[in-house]
């Protein structure tokens, strides 16, 4: 990872309670490190993630937002991640269309057994955010210190 002591990215990870949050727990209990820049918010299901939350994170200064849920077909609520998948696809496409670097958003399906995948995904994502640098295209200037 490039060493840039100046830049400490803020990264929000929305994780569904049933798969990805448990996957993150497994990463923890397996001591699979990923940068502390990632902060996890627990939601019952990826379908609970409102595009508004993602924009809100960017508004308040997040540099990257990642959403994790159960693999398609494995949703605890059967269909939640299917809706989430469509919503996020459209939202990300719109952000890309508006010139926001598409590496700042990501969706990854992580099961409760995939602690390794969780950790790898977070490492990759954080690295990507470091390479993109500070988020200047989305965000409210009033929140910048």
């Amino acid at each position: 990872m490039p060493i840039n002591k100046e830049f400490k990215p803020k990264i929000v990870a929305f994780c569904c309670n049933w798969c990805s949050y448990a996957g993150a727990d497994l990463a923890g209990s397996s001591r699979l490190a990923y940068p502390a820049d990632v902060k996890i918010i627990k939601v019952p299901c990826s379908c609970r993630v409102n595009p508004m939350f993602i924009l809100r994170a960017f508004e308040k200064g997040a540099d990257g937002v990642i959403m994790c849920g159960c693999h398609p077909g494995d949703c605890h609520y059967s269909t939640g991640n299917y809706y989430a998948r469509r919503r996020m696809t459209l939202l990300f496409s719109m952000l890309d269309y508006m010139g926001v670097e598409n590496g700042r958003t990501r969706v990854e399906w992580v099961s409760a057994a995939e602690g390794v995948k969780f950790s790898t995904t977070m490492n990759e994502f954080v690295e990507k955010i470091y390479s993109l640098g500070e988020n200047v295209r989305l965000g409210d200037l009033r929140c910048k210190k």
Partner: protein
Amino acid sequence: MKKIAKSNLSALFAKINETKDLYVPVKNGEQVNFAAYSEEAEVDLTALKTVKSPKDAFFPQSENLYTCFNEQGKISITPEELQDKDFVVFGMKACDIKGIEVLDKVFLSEPVDSFYAARRQHGIIVGLACDKPEESCFCTVFGINPAEPTADVAVYDDEDFLYWNALTEKGNALTETLCDLLEDADNTAVENKKKEITAIAEKLPYANLSLEGWNGDALTEKFDSPIWEELYKPCLACGTCTFSCPTCQCYDIKDYNTGNGIKRYRCWDSCMYSDFTMMAHGNNRTSQMQRFRQRFMHKLVYFPANNDGMYSCVGCGRCVDKCPQNLNIVKVIKAFEKGGKA
């Protein structure tokens, strides 16, 4: 009377901009709005009306009032600084300048609005006579002369030259700083221009609009009129009329959470919005008819009743041009003239 070749205008702007902030009409796409001057900005003095009125320069759509900052439980409060640098608004039209007079009545009477007062103190208005009045203009109805902007400096656009006539002390002082760029001129071109403008103004389709009966005495009669019920129906409850208007002065005060503190700011509000003056119990105007009526009653009845007959409409015609569903104050006035069923 001075003049400057239009080809030399950018030098004039640059000169003003050296010591003062400068706001000029700038074209962005097909729209012209007042904006801070920069070398790259496409200054457009030919557009008769900017989409938004230039009241922004004195009463911005949004401005911070103060900032609270929370650090480990310690809260500090920093008030926003008042305007202390002179600035020039270049190219305001007679109607918009009259609009500022309307705002003065609101913000400069007690209690004085210090933010607004500071801007008025430091603001220098360079008024531009209306080269080609348009069909939606009806400033003359309110006694405004589009050929005589009552600014610090009145400017006339005539073919290759801009004629420059300082009218106030502020105007003279500004002229002083620009003496290298301005040359002396006689009045002929300006007088001809004024005649031309006046001639067109007389032919405007709304020139003969009558304001008879619009005063404080007519309050109950107008308020209770069934005509409002017919007029408001197409209204979308958007704020286009309000936000393009040079005289609308309502604002809301809100807090913005920056994470570590609060920025308290005020921003324009529109009486057309359903959450205008929303209170805990709900809203005191419960229907769009009431909100619609409020806007026009305020401009044509309440305001003149409280301000020696000064209407808070200046006939700029922006709402006439911009209302998405083609409602406007002229149609309201005409409807009452006819007694309904316009």
